């Protein structure tokens, strides 16, 4: 038996996708022209699927800080946070994050994925129960599995379902509820205020992953919990540096007085090399800019509105109310793959999202806007979506 036999079915499905054009999971950006443009297959392409929400990947201050850090502190730390991998920079960023979030303490992880693993594994063990939203990101599911905790799934964005399930909880177990702020696939927002009421009623703990909402939601940019005025009720907040902050890495923060025990009890924090100095330095600069420039958020919301209204006007079926993640529903996988290829040919990159990576088996063209998009670029994108709409209609007729 070949060790790869188990992938026969999924590989077959992937082969079918390849017959329709470019490999959606193997797109190569040959030249990065700006935060919103790249050369792909020789074509100038507008990027509308990057998670570069604030467009900070080319922020001058962040670039300079990264260059300075790599020159003075080297290319990598060659060690973990519990050995030789904690530099003054890591600590400074942790303090700045704690202050920005109004939390007692913050831990920096090497990726956002590892932040979820590290937080979940650190917080929940085999005697605990995790209640997670059914639409949670893979990193949350993986963290749950690694924790060894009992894992109960509740219906997406449904506080009443959580309430019913928590009411059935057995005595003597600690309960950790996990939700996200903005969901990355459909672009819908969690009713965190209602979840907070439920968790208080049952004495559970609440962790919110603000991966896609940090820097984007809330008056100060702290996320959906801030926007809903319930940060006090969120016990643990997780986020990533790879989206609005334009870097790589992740964080977990809390005001629990014993939180820092995770520094020597959470294996995904302990047994991996710490982020390199350049990453940390660029994130410090990006965080400082988010802190002092609320106008960045104004721009992304204006761009979100322009794209959302434009796509709705073209008759596309959009999954959620306006947010920087705009998911266009396609009738089936074949159409989704075809439309995704067509947009790429027309010089627009969006994300193709198909089951099982999507909730409820939907097939999506997932768009995300950036504050760095110019209004005219969004017009161009809408023009190409308009062409796509006509071609789809012609194919149906």
């Amino acid at each position: 038996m070949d060790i790869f036999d188990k992938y026969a079915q999924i590989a077959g499905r992937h082969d079918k996708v390849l017959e329709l054009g470019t490999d959606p999971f193997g797109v190569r950006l040959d030249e990065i022209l700006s935060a919103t443009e790249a050369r792909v297959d020789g074509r100038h392409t507008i990027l509308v699927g990057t998670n570069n929400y604030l467009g900070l990947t080319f922020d001058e201050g962040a670039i300079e800080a990264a260059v300075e850090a790599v020159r003075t502190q080297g290319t990598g730390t060659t060690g973990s946070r519990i050995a030789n991998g904690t530099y003054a920079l890591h600590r400074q960023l942790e303090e700045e994050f704690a202050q920005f979030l109004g939390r007692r303490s913050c831990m920096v992880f090497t990726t956002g994925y590892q932040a979820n693993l590290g937080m979940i594994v650190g917080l929940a063990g085999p005697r605990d129960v995790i209640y997670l939203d059914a639409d949670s990101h893979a990193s949350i599911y993986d963290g749950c599995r690694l924790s060894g905790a009992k894992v109960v799934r509740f219906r997406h964005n449904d506080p009443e379902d959580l309430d019913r399930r928590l009411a059935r909880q057995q005595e003597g177990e600690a309960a950790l509820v996990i939700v996200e702020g903005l969901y990355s696939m459909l672009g819908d927002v969690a009713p965190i205020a209602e979840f907070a009421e439920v968790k208080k009623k049952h004495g559970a703990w609440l962790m919110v992953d603000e991966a896609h909402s940090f820097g984007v939601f809330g008056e100060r940019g702290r996320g959906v919990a801030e926007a809903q005025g319930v940060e006090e009720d969120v016990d643990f907040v997780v986020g990533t540096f790879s989206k609005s902050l334009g870097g790589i890495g992740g964080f977990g923060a809390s005001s629990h007085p014993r939180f820092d025990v995770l520094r020597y009890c959470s294996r995904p924090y302990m047994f991996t090399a710490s982020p390199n100095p350049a990453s940390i330095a660029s994130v410090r600069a990006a965080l400082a800019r988010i802190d002092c420039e609320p106008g960045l958020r104004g721009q992304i919301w204006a761009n979100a509105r322009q794209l959302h209204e434009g796509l709705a006007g073209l008759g596309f079926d959009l999954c959620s109310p306006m947010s920087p993640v705009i998911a266009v529903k396609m009738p089936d996988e074949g159409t989704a793959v075809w439309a995704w290829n067509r947009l790429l040919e027309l010089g627009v990159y969006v994300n193709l999202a198909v089951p099982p990576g999507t909730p409820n088996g939907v097939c999506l063209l997932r768009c995300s806007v950036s504050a760095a998009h110019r209004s005219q670029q969004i017009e161009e994108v809408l023009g190409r979506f308009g062409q796509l709409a006509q071609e789809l209609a012609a194919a149906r007729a």
Partner: protein
Amino acid sequence: MTTTDDTIFREICGLVARFAPAGVQLRPETELASDLNVDSVAAMDLVMEIEDKYEIDIPINQLADMRSLGDLVELVRQQLKDR
């Protein structure tokens, strides 16, 4: 199978009947994925329906080994017993 198992089995058959291709008999050894084409997304919905019906929570840790209708009945029985 005891009588209660039998009842649970019949009730669960009611819930999965919509997946069954014509001519497939529902038995305890009927496999959800290979015999009934219940994919992972559909299985998730099905489990939630069953949880609602019996007012139980089936931890996802226990779903990994679930293959057949009989396995599903056993999971429900276990949760009803622990309640």
